[in-house]
């Protein structure tokens, strides 16, 4: 058993940690208040190669393995979650379909610009009528000559307001449905018939914008099918599966940051003549926060490692997502508690993390759906 990380992974960890702490963190409050990420922070991330971390070298990225990606996401999780959401939706679900499943032609066409961050990617599966039941799509694609005509409405699509390249799922055969009737497409924002809605107003993840996307007789060239016609649902599961450990890693990073903030506050804040960190009640909260976070971290990196060994690790990835995101929420709750009334105030970051933690139990497959996946894997043969 070997828990060491490679020298270059350690360098990446240090680089992203320093970058996040010195460059991004000073803007966290501003991002929250303005609901906007300053352009220079996005540009810096591009310069550092963060937008290409999951895209192979031959297409201009650096093609990190899963452990490497988790290391980067964990450090990004230490700052404003809107920032990591913007980058993560692009490097994760927004480009994985192209990287893993697309034809060479599509890869050549789209990946270099996506790797450089010249174009932004997003992933459009969810619809008003298709959330956890992602197969219940209302969006359809009909073949006309050498084009597909796409009609339908997607919602809650992260990065849609800034995205250039959409991975879109549509029904191509109603009869077959999930079993051969869903197809994935690459759609550009400038294709005729694409309308992106106004950013949604939401509880947290400020600066990272989601919106509706409407396709109205949108013409998509035949060659823009990702993978095979009819295999879209399998593609969606593959893409989401790969995203799961990344979200787990981000949650670990946010939890670690909350622990640091809580320790700092507990040592500074004095009540009854001594720092509250001298109270066992506070110490036990810290101990639980640390223990759960370390457990989540171990599960996350084990799942990542299994994937790098060529395993599907479906159960392990789902367990890591489930546990790490629940941990993040527990830790955020305790962090607010340790901060007392200050934990409820917007001037302390615990308040923001507390709200931002909430979404991690919902997107990229709700935690109920994760439990469904885990138990299904467990009961497979029976």
């Amino acid at each position, binding site marked *: 058993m070997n828990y060491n990380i490679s020298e*270059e992974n350690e*360098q990446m960890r240090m*680089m992203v940690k320093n970058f996040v702490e010195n460059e991004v963190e000073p803007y966290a409050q501003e991002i929250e208040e303005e609901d906007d990420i300053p352009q220079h922070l996005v540009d810096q991330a591009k310069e550092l190669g963060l937008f290409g971390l999951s895209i192979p070298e031959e297409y201009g990225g650096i093609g990190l393995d899963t452990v490497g990606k988790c290391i980067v996401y964990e450090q990004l999780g230490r700052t404003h979650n809107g920032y990591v959401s913007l980058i993560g939706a692009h490097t994760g679900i927004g480009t994985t379909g192209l990287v893993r499943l697309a034809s060479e032609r599509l890869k050549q066409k789209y990946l270099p610009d996506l790797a450089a961050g010249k174009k932004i990617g997003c992933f459009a599966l969810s619809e008003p009528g298709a959330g956890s039941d992602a197969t219940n799509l209302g969006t359809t694609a009909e073949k006309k000559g050498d084009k597909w005509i796409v009609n339908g409405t997607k919602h809650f699509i992260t990065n849609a307001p800034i995205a250039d390249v959409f991975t879109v799922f549509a029904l191509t055969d109603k009869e077959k449905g999930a079993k051969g009737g869903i197809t994935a497409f690459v759609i550009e924002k400038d294709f005729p018939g694409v309308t992106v809605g106004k950013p949604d107003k939401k509880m947290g993840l400020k600066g990272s914008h989601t919106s509706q996307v409407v396709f109205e007789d949108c013409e998509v060239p035949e060659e823009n099918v990702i993978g095979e016609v009819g295999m879209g649902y399998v593609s969606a599961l593959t893409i989401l599966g790969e995203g799961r450990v990344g979200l787990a890693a981000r949650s670990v990073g946010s939890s670690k940051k909350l622990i640091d903030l809580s320790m700092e506050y507990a040592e500074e804040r004095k009540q009854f003549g001594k720092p509250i960190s001298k109270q066992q009640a506070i110490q036990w909260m810290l101990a639980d926060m640390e223990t759960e976070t370390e457990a989540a971290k171990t599960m996350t990196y084990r799942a990542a490692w299994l994937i790098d060994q060529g395993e599907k690790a479906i159960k392990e990835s789902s367990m890591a997502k489930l546990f790490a995101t629940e941990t993040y929420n527990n830790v955020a709750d305790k962090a607010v508690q340790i901060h007392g009334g200050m934990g409820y105030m917007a001037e302390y970051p615990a308040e923001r993390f507390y709200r931002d933690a909430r979404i991690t139990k919902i997107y990229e497959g709700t935690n109920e759906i994760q439990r469904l996946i885990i138990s299904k894997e467990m009961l497979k043969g029976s």
Partner: protein
Amino acid sequence: MNIYVVMKRTFDTEEKVEINDGIIDEEGAEFVINPYDEYAIEEAIVLKEAHGGEITVVTVGNEDAEKELRTALAMGADQAVLLDTEDLDGEIDHYTISEMLSAFFQDKEYDIILGGNVAVDDGAGQVAPRLAEKLEINQLTTITKLDIDGESAYIERDVEGDVEIVEANLPLLVTCQQGLNEPRYPSLPGIMKAKKKPLETLDLDDLDLDEDDLEAKTRTVDRFLPPEKDAGKRLEGEPHEQVQELMSLLKNEAKVI
């Protein structure tokens, strides 16, 4: 242009420093490139971008310093050299280090050597100036601006807060001060490329040096942390009362007026 950077691996001084029996506890400490040396590396990259050439980063230390050398390579240096101190049993001081560096530079062709103003761990600022003396080349310390045109360099120096403008000829050694530039972060592609760049280790034999010639000229007697600061005193009452009390404290207690 042949550009060299001399750099040091130091512990991160933003971390808590612990001393046990006069020895700094390195257990669990994070190590970094000396921040002033980061200015030197950045300036080397800027020079290369403007004038072309090659950047070699050199450090004196043990194999742990390979990590910091790799970081310099990831930032944009072309090759790295570790002058290994493994064969040295005794104490290593600025004399030892500058002797090793000057041995390394004996057969090298260089236009400019850049270093940090001081290392943040011991703050001595000796190695680079000693090296320039040994090599008998021009040296300018605490620089905050550098422009090179042909064989001559236009330099601004920080002299206790004032600026001194100097012109000097190459070959030249400079030490870099805060304000010279903003060191870049190594990019992810840079980190991946650094893996494949040459990193050479030279021991005393390679440098034609003998352990006896490198014996430290100084001896560290003790190390200790500064005493903890007492809590401040809070004055109360109306402003004029506070002023009176402050005056009396400065006179009678602090005895400074």
